[in-house]
């Protein structure tokens, strides 16, 4: 009969980073029945980010090894038991969960040599030393505290704060320290974002990540760091072009009816609702209606499936001031809005985008996007699809052009008409040219035969 003289302590697969969900046991350094000291290496594991040793969380006998070399298990899975009696191990209820698996530090990290022990205060007897020393997970290389603002600046500029000599208390990197590095532009000691030996087999092709790296300014050049938004746009645009088969079709639309409708409604909309019925609002309204008949244009290629919807979440591309970036807030359930509702939605999103008042939900869940670069007179373009959507509509400058019109008797004449070019850029993996052409034709029909307020 075995009398358990030690408390059983579980060894679990540690969490080696937020994105790591599993690990492989590569080698056991102790066998069942052997003695081990706390913090002595017990096994080696491999994850898709790092290979490391796992130290023992306690001193005692290796009672049971539950996962064999070569096996891959989820983070948190019990790997072994130190101390206690073997029989209790598999019954989870009877084994007291000791502090739910303290994550051992990555072994490559030197644990700071013993935190200074506070002087025992006379009247407060020192508490009994904790049974299992609690290895504290060090957040970063040298384990120094990183304040919120330093963490934010570091992530915005792709800087590893551990590489900066700190002037704060205990060598902490202060905001001034990191700003000095940013301003010098010299050595944002890029923390290669945790991807050593990325030999992960059969990794899906990933968009090349924009690597933050120092750019030395040549004479006459100015160098500024890439903002988080710019980096996001860069990755998003590149990924879209790497994903979708972009094709653009264009159509010319006679906007006479829209110009008349807008003139008729403008005063009422502005005085009664404070909203400007922009051409964009008309096009958005007509496009939303047209999408009902062309579900793939409003759809998505998701893995092996094609997703279509009975709703339209309409993204509107909004430029932020001074070329500082672009954001695509979304009008939800645009199919349920009349012209006034759409105009109001666009005005609201645009103003909140520029005032930085958008909420995360405002920029998520779009199913189709409209971009309107025509304000500066451009008459054609090939926008990039907003992934994972399938198409993006571009609207361009409204210009008066000589236009051939045919009267009831079949006589042709040249008239002056307000013409707008509209493009549809679509993902040819899902949407074919003829389908896109019919979509544009129907959209043109709706705009050219607009009546009243379009409700």
């Amino acid at each position: 009969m075995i009398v358990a003289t030690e408390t059983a302590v579980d060894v679990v697969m540690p969490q080696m980073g937020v994105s790591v969900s599993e690990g492989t046991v590569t080698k056991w350094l102790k066998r069942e029945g052997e003695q081990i000291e706390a913090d002595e290496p017990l096994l080696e594991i491999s994850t898709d980010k790092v290979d490391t040793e796992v130290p023992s969380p306690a001193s005692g006998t290796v009672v049971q090894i539950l996962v064999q070399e070569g096996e891959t298990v989820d983070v948190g899975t019990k790997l072994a038991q130190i101390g206690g009696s073997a029989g209790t191990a598999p019954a989870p209820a009877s084994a007291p969960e000791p502090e739910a698996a303290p994550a051992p530090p990555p072994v490559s990290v030197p644990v700071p040599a013993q935190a200074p022990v506070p002087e025992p205060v006379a009247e407060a007897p020192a508490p009994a030393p904790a049974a299992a020393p609690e290895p504290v997970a060090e957040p970063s290389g040298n384990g120094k505290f990183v304040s919120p603002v330093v963490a934010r600046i570091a992530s915005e500029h792709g800087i590893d704060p551990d590489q900066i000599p700190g002037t704060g208390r205990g060598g902490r990197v202060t905001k001034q320290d990191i700003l000095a590095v940013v301003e010098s532009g010299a050595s944002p000691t890029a923390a290669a974002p945790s991807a050593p030996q990325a030999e992960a087999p059969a990794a899906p092709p990933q968009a090349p990540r924009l690597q933050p790296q120092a750019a030395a300014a040549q004479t006459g050049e100015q160098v500024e760091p890439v903002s988080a938004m710019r980096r996001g746009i860069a990755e998003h645009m590149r990924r879209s072009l790497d994903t979708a088969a972009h094709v653009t079709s264009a159509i010319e639309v006679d906007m006479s009816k829209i110009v008349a409708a807008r003139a008729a409604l403008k005063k009422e909309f502005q005085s009664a609702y404070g909203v400007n019925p922009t051409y964009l609002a008309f096009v958005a309204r007509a496009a939303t209606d047209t999408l009902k008949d062309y579900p793939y244009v409003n759809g998505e290629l998701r893995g092996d499936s094609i997703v279509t919807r009975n709703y339209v979440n309409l993204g509107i591309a909004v430029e932020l001031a001074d070329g500082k970036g672009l954001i695509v807030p979304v009008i939800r359930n645009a199919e349920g809005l009349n012209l006034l509702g759409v105009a109001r939605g666009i005005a609201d999103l645009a103003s909140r985008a520029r005032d930085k008042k958008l909420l995360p939900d405002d920029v998520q869940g779009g199913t189709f996007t409209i971009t309107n670069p025509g304000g500066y007179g451009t008459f054609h373009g090939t926008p990039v699809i907003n992934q994972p959507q399938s198409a993006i509509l571009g609207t361009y400058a409204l210009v008066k052009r000589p236009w051939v019109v045919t009267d009831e008797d079949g006589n042709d004449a040249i008239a002056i008409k307000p013409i707008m070019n509209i493009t549809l850029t679509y993902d040819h993996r899902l949407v074919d040219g003829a389908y896109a052409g019919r979509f544009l034709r129907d959209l043109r029909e709706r705009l050219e035969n607009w009546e009243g307020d379009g409700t």
Partner: protein
Amino acid sequence: MAELTYLQAISDALRTEMRRDKRVFLIGEDVGVYGGAFKVSLGFQEEFGPWRVIDAPLAETAIVGACTGASMMGLRPVAEMQFADFVSCAWDQLVTVAAKQRWRVGTPVPIVVRLPSGGGFSGGPFHSQNPESSFAHVPGLKCVCPATPEDAKGLLISAIEDPSPVLYFEHKHLYRRIKGEVPEERYTVPIGKARTHRLGKDISVITWGAMVYTAGEAAQQLENDGVSVEVIDLRSVMPWDKAAVLDSARKTSKVLVLHEDTRTGGFGAEIAATIAEEAFEDLDAPVKRIAAPDTPVPFSPPLEKAFIPQVEDVVAGLRDLAGY
């Protein structure tokens, strides 16, 4: 522009409004014949008569109750608590009646209650308190705490104009000690807007009332260490200028909240919590509070000095933040 003391600026505001608007009247203990315990309304009864400068019995409940009723009948009463400490007697009228009226039935209660507050002259536990945090916690009441003569006049006029009950905390320590240029004409200082007392870039001090000057002196000392300290004078505690505080916090990333009232549950806690919630990613150090300890205000001069935050306490706090 004339140079007026803080106290003269308060009198000037009252006189300006009483001359302009017949609905405005004063009521309080000894405000009439005696001219007020601190002589704020000296000569007012001669100018405006006993029906507009009313000597009340020693009954703060009656004073605030009468003001509330008069305001609902269209008048613009200004009550004086002889010392802010005595307002506790009027708690029920202020909190249960005046603060709730607009929410209950929609009628405005345009009363002003003047509260001579603050310590620094061995007034002891009943003549030295700063009870603004207690009232800032009551929805329906506004609380202003001017620090300069110019703000004392402008905020009092705003308070009289305001349709809500406004508690006007005037700091006794500033009455005759602080002088400044005050425009002679009528003007208002908006309730709810802070003022930058001193521009800086390394640490922000958020404060109000007499502590503005304590912070200013401490900031000057830090300047000699090469640390640039910004001092924000909140001016209004309710509503308070969250945007100005957050802007300053985002700029400097280190914040010291300073007040003369006691620490626990003081309004500084609200400010510190808001900064932590809304500017967390801009902080480079924990938000620090300096306030009086959680005791009544002591009589004894050395004890009172230990109680009220002093320049050297603020200097030590700022040095701690600077070195963080």
